[in-house]
């Protein structure tokens, strides 16, 4: 379980995260939703220790995040992470050198599933294919937790469907996923839990099937209640 406990983040005088707490369970897909500029990416960066916090703590399986935690948890950002002249093959080599848990077989499976060519230069790929390479590099690490920042943004509908399919496959099963997205429609049926972030605070945290069952509402209905008043 990833536990985010009362974290506070300020940029100058602006408080971006104001005592934010939530959990993301293993074996579940948790979706962090909020309009732009609400600090979703900052939370992911904080979990990965890429940005310092003013207060609060983050625990992974009950322990503080250290160097060793990064074998258990991978971050798939929405930007290119590899050097521009790298081919997909070189990027995979690079990952293999860094992660003990790199799983080449899984990487090869995903290469075939996404119909990517290992000799292609990453800089020459379309936006959709770049996102798929990022996903491949992250998911091929045998990590327990996966953080994904906006895997669907700016990508055509068919690539989005292909990426959504990953969530129903063995590539994700049993792992804990924390994902941020605007395109909730693509994955409404796929997520277990929703955490709504608004004005630097958690507005709501709920299980999607419970809201459908007890209140007859879709995820979008709940979002509308929170954001459109």
């Amino acid at each position: 379980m990833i536990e985010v406990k009362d974290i506070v983040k300020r940029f100058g005088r602006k408080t971006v995260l104001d005592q934010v707490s939530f959990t993301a369970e293993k074996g579940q897909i948790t979706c962090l939703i909020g309009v732009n500029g609400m600090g979703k990416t900052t939370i992911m960066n904080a979990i990965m220790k890429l940005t310092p916090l003013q207060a609060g703590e983050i625990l992974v399986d009950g322990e503080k995040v250290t160097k060793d935690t990064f074998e258990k948890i991978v971050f798939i950002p929405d930007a290119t992470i590899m050097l521009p002249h790298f081919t997909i093959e070189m990027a995979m080599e690079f990952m293999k050198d860094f992660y003990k848990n790199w799983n080449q077989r899984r990487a090869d499976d995903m290469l075939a599933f996404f119909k990517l060519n290992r000799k292609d230069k990453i800089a020459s790929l379309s936006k959709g294919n770049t996102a798929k390479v990022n996903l491949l590099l992250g998911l091929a690490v045998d990590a327990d937790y996966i953080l994904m920042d906006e895997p669907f943004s700016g990508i055509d509908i068919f690539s989005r469907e292909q990426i959504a399919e990953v969530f129903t496959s063995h590539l994700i099963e049993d792992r804990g996923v924390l994902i941020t997205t605007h395109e909730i429609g693509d994955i409404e049926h796929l997520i277990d839990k929703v955490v709504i972030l608004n004005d630097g605070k958690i507005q709501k945290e709920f299980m999607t099937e419970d809201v459908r069952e007890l209140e007859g509402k879709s995820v979008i209905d709940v979002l509308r209640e929170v954001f459109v008043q």
Partner: protein
Amino acid sequence: MNIQFNNRDPVYIQVIQHFKLQIAKGFLESGDVIPSRRELASQLKINPNTAQRAYKEMEEEGLIKTEKNQPSKVTHDQDVLRGVRNELIDEAVSQFVDSVKSINVPLEDAMKLIETHYKEKGDSND
């Protein structure tokens, strides 16, 4: 297999409903092997946890049976299977009655209308 899910009903219940329809239509018969949870999740593009929950409910309702290290199968219990068919028919009729009653259609008229529509549709059973 393909289901158009709506967003307001629990997905697991929609999955169960789908299986019940298959049984009522006779596409799934007693003893038929159904997909594993993982297969179902990827076929229907749903969360494996949801597939798991749907199967668990169906097991509790006695619709399917899973023995150790065996794929899940549709129950052999004919009473349960007949029950599923009756339940679906009952639901459909009661929905129909609710909507015609709400616009004050007398019973005789409703019956006549059913008859005409039934004949018009002929033998197609979609």
